[in-house]
C-alpha cells in the first residue's frame, strides 16, 4: 500500500481509528524529509494491514503542525487510541520506527 497523504480530515479519522498510526510531518523544502521519504514508503508497504502510515505536508496543514507542536521536520508522531504515544524528531534509521510500531501492533 502506498503511503497515505493526510489532510486534517483524513488525519483525524486515521488517528481516531484505534490502531497504531504513524504520521510523518514533512515539507518539500526540507532535505532531511526527502531523505526519509523512501523509508516511510517502505514501512507503509511492510506494515500494510497492521498499521496506518501516512504523511502530513506542514505547508498545506500548518494548523495541524501547530496543534501537535511540530517545531522541526521531519517529525514522526505515533498515535494509538487517538492519543500520541511517541515521537521521533529528525531522520532516523528504519529500526527506530519499527521498534515503536512492533511494540504497539
Amino acid at each position: 500500500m502506498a503511503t497515505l497523504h493526510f489532510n486534517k480530515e483524513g488525519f483525524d479519522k486515521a488517528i481516531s481509528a484505534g490502531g497504531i498510526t504513524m504520521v510523518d510531518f514533512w515539507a518539500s523544502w526540507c532535505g532531511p524529509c526527502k531523505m526519509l521519504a523512501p523509508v516511510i514508503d517502505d514501512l507503509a508497504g511492510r506494515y500494510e494491514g497492521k498499521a496506518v502510515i501516512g504523511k502530513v505536508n506542514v505547508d498545506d496543514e500548518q494548523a495541524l503542525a501547530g496543534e501537535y507542536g511540530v517545531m522541526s521536520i521531519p517529525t514522526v508522531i505515533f498515535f494509538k487510541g487517538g492519543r500520541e504515544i511517541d515521537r521521533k524528531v529528525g531522520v532516523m534509521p528504519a529500526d527506530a520506527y519499527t521498534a515503536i510500531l512492533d511494540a504497539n501492533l
Partner: protein
Amino acid sequence: MAYDIAVIGGGPAGLSAAVQARQRNKSVVVISGDDRDGPIYKTERIDNYLGLPQIRGPELLERFRKHADSMGVERKTGRALNIMQMNGAFYISIGSDMAQAGAVVLAPGVARGVKYPGEAEHLGAGVSYCATCDGMLYRGRDVVVVGRSSEAPEEANFLQEIGCRVTYVAPREPEGLHGGIPFVKGVRIEVLGEKAVTGVRADGRELSCAGVFILRAAIAPTDLLPGLALRDGYVAVDRDMAASIPGVFAAGDCTGLPLQISKAVGEGLVAGHRAAEYLDKHK
C-alpha cells in the same frame, strides 16, 4: 542525484580524496560550506607545504579547488545535516537538497560535537540546525540565530524574509546582515526553556524566543552518523582511513593531530583510493 562517492568537506583532505577518486573514474560530489570558514583560508602564509614555500592559504586552496574542478569533481554548497544508510547506499541531506552515494569520505575538519547548555535537550523542540527546513514553522515568531559560520547571515536574512522576527547572536557583528535584524554580541550561549525553547542567554543577556537556529560551519561527524566510533575525540580510522562504519572513510583534521595540510592531503589520497576500492568490491 546518485554519485559513487560523496565527500563531506571541501578543504585539502576532501579535495585530495575527490581528485584521487576521480582518477579511479568514480563520480564524486564534494559537499562543503563557505571557504572562508576553513582554517586554510585564514592562514596568511604556509611555510611547510612541500615544494610551495611561503604560499598564501587562500591561494593554495584555490589551486586545490581548480585541480578538483578540472578533474570533473562536482560541488554542492551547503552544510551536510544528516547521513542515513539504507540498502547499501548513503543518503546525505544538505539544506533542502539531498545526495545519494555508495561511499562517504568525511573531511569536515575539526568539527567537535560540543554543544551549548540546553541545546541537545531541545533538539526538535525549538533548536534547529536548518533554516530552510524549519524556518516556515516559526513564521510570525521570535527566533534567535546563533551565527557560527560565514553563511549564517544569509540564513538569518532568509528567516526574516519568510516572516520570522530574527535576532542575530555572534561574537562579532557580521557583514551582510539585513537592516532590521538586531545584532547581539554573544560568546557564551545557553538555550533556555523547560519542554520547549523559551529563550537564549547570550553572555548573560536573556533573549526571549520560540526557536533558535544554531548555524555552525559543519555538523560533527558523530551527529551526522550516529554510532561512528571516536578515538580521543577524533574519528577513529585504520591505515586505510576506514571509519567504524563500512563504506565510510575519513581524512584530515577530523582524524586527529597534526592538523597540517600535508597530512590532510595524504590521508585524503588514501581515503579516495580505498573508497574507490570499496565500491569496486561491493558492486
